[in-house]
């Protein structure tokens, strides 16, 4: 069905861009959300089917595609609220929704891609769409954000390409010219390990820009800060998953070769440094939106720790990445309303949120609990399993230090969130505060509830898909 989905989605984006009528615009957006959902469900009934030669709906792809369509619906709804409250021109509204739908389409197609070059092309397209969204406000700060994002993403995309070139060098010996993941997996024994090391290094570094790990994480932070919150929600969840897919699919090939321990060391170092960097910033950060962005860096670090530790850690990593995609967007969506109350992102200007928007304040509190993986949260389950896998693989020192760092993150995160929720703000003109309907927080509750449900009482189909994704690695 992807041969139907891709042209259809592109057509919708183009129509959104050129259309000036409000009603047609929103009808198209609703239609797109339904279209994506239908596509995801249809694909999930056709597991492991190959389409157009380059797309394969395997467990990992379907799992993340379903997550994507679940996050898309509230993202588009909050996009609608965002546009409605910002009094946008017709042109910028059209461009916003066209870029959103195109971004989601590219992410979805990249999840299902079974060919490393096709993944690479769709990653390029996401950079393009994301840059349009970051520059939505046309301010100097947004320009700075978009410039950094485009430049760093261009370099990292070049790195991935260099990695692909080294991979083809490593294939030369085997006499294979097909770069699909299936063909690579079949011929893993003939890959030249020396070139494969180079390839892994470059591909890993390149995808860290999307995944949000050290060394290329910086661009993503500015992007999530400057983009409108609904777009930021997508950047810090489903777009990060795209980086994970890129690394994971290639890692599945590397895991069959002799360089696996070496690759694991690289991942461990990058993951540990990411958590460290996130801790350093989270304990002193004053911009709420950037704090959420750094929290994503921390979670991706944990995911990669689980992957490198192996064993149950791989299952936990995939579970974590799915649950995180439900938890983090809900915080970003809620932030949109926080900003409407205070007109500021700085922690110094906000406070006493419970007084102005009760439903939103509870959503924020629950989001905080979920995000820091305190027990009722779904992330608690996956984080616990990641720590277990670190323990089992004898990475005790890393485990100990990471636990320490996570405690500091909870402190930093908590002190800011509690300031926002309970401490009265220094100076605020209460007459200017808009009344915000409790319904706007409904999607946040639903997303957080899904995360809890999937973690504590996973449906059989969900477990099956996750296991299918884990089975990409040699057991």
């Amino acid at each position, binding site marked *: 069905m992807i041969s139907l989905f891709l042209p259809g989605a592109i057509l919708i984006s183009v129509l959104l861009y050129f259309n000036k009528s409000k009603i047609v615009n929103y009808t198209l957006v609703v239609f797109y959300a339904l279209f994506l959902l239908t596509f995801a469900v249809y694909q999930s009934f056709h597991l492991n089917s190959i389409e157009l030669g380059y797309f394969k709906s395997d467990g990992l792809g379907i799992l993340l595609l379903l997550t994507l369509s679940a996050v898309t619906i509230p993202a588009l709804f909050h996009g609608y609220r965002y546009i409605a409250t910002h009094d946008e021109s017709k042109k910028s509204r059209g461009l916003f929704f066209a870029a959103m739908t195109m971004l989601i389409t590219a992410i979805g197609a990249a999840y299902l891609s079974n060919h490393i070059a096709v993944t690479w092309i769709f990653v390029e397209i996401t950079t393009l769409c994301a840059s349009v969204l970051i520059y939505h406000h046309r301010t*100097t700060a947004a320009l*700075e954000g*978009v*410039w950094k994002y485009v430049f760093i993403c261009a370099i990292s995309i070049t790195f991935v390409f260099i990695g692909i070139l080294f991979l*083809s060098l490593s294939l030369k010996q085997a006499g294979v010219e097909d770069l699909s993941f299936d063909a690579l997996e079949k011929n893993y024994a003939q890959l030249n390990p020396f070139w494969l090391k180079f390839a892994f290094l470059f591909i890993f570094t390149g995808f860290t820009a999307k995944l949000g790990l050290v060394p290329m994480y910086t661009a993503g932070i500015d992007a999530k800060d400057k983009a409108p919150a609904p777009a930021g929600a997508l950047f810090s969840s489903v777009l990060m998953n795209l980086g994970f897919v890129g690394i994971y699919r290639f890692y599945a090939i590397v895991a069959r070769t002799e360089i696996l321990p070496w690759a694991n060391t690289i991942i461990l170092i990058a993951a540990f440094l990411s958590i460290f960097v996130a801790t350093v910033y989270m304990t002193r950060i004053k*911009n709420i939106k950037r704090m959420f962005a750094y929290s994503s860096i921390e979670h991706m670090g944990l995911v990669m720790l689980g992957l490198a530790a192996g064993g149950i850690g791989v299952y936990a990593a995939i579970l974590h990445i799915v649950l995180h995609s439900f938890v983090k967007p809900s915080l970003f969506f809620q932030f949109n309303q926080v900003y409407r109350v205070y007109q500021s992102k700085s922690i110094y200007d906000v406070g006493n949120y419970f007084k102005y928007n009760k439903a939103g304040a509870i959503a924020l509190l629950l989001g905080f609990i979920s995000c820091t993986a305190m027990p009722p949260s779904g992330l608690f389950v996956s984080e616990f399993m990641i720590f277990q896998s670190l323990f089992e693989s004898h990475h005790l020192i890393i485990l100990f230090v990471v636990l320490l760092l996570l405690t500091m993150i909870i402190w930093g995160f908590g002190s800011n969130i509690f300031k926002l929720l309970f401490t009265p703000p220094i100076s605020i003109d209460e007459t200017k505060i808009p009344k915000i309907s409790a319904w706007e927080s409904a999607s946040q509750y639903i997303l957080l509830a899904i995360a809890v449900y999937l973690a504590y009482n996973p449906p059989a189909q969900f477990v099956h898909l996750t296991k299918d994704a884990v089975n990409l690695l040699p057991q």
Partner: protein
Amino acid sequence: MTDILLIMFAMTLLYMSIANRLLTYIRILVFQGFLLFGVTFLELSHINVTNLVLILLETVVFKALAVPLFLNRVIKHNGITRVAEPFLPNFVSLIIITLIIVITIVLSNSIKDINLDKTFFVVALSTLFTGLYIISTRRKIITHVMGYLVIENGVFILSLAVGNEMPMLVNLGIMLDIFASVLILGVFFNKIGDVLNDPDVNQLRNLKD
């Protein structure tokens, strides 16, 4: 013959490290475009003609003419001063670039792979690192863009090394070239030039924690 062209390419890197004026950088980029044209013409003999013509057109029309002309226009249009303003003295740059080339030669000598054309590997890798070096040691945003273009050229050379077996990869490289250059140069550099006068990276330091 290919080797001679590639060695000349490596020499342009050394020249770039001591170049002072932006115009010199642009001229070097033009020259590199023509060198790449020559290398492509000599090297890719086994692929079909239409594809070869496409690749050759990309090197000449895009790399050697369109992008440099555009850079020139941007510099004139925004009234950017003509000096590259490196953070380090040129002499140090020269030594560092030389070291990069020497290290890649040593590295390539440690590789025992008969499938590898070492000249391609050395020139591609040293071009890549020179580009990164230029990005990190120049003050103007436009020199960052030029550093990125140098990286692209390095990647292009590397893709030529496997071009006969997998022409698809060369095409992908061309796509990357055009995509990134249009995105970086066309849309945003124009914008940055309009918003900030004499763009300097120091003016893009407001987003931080």
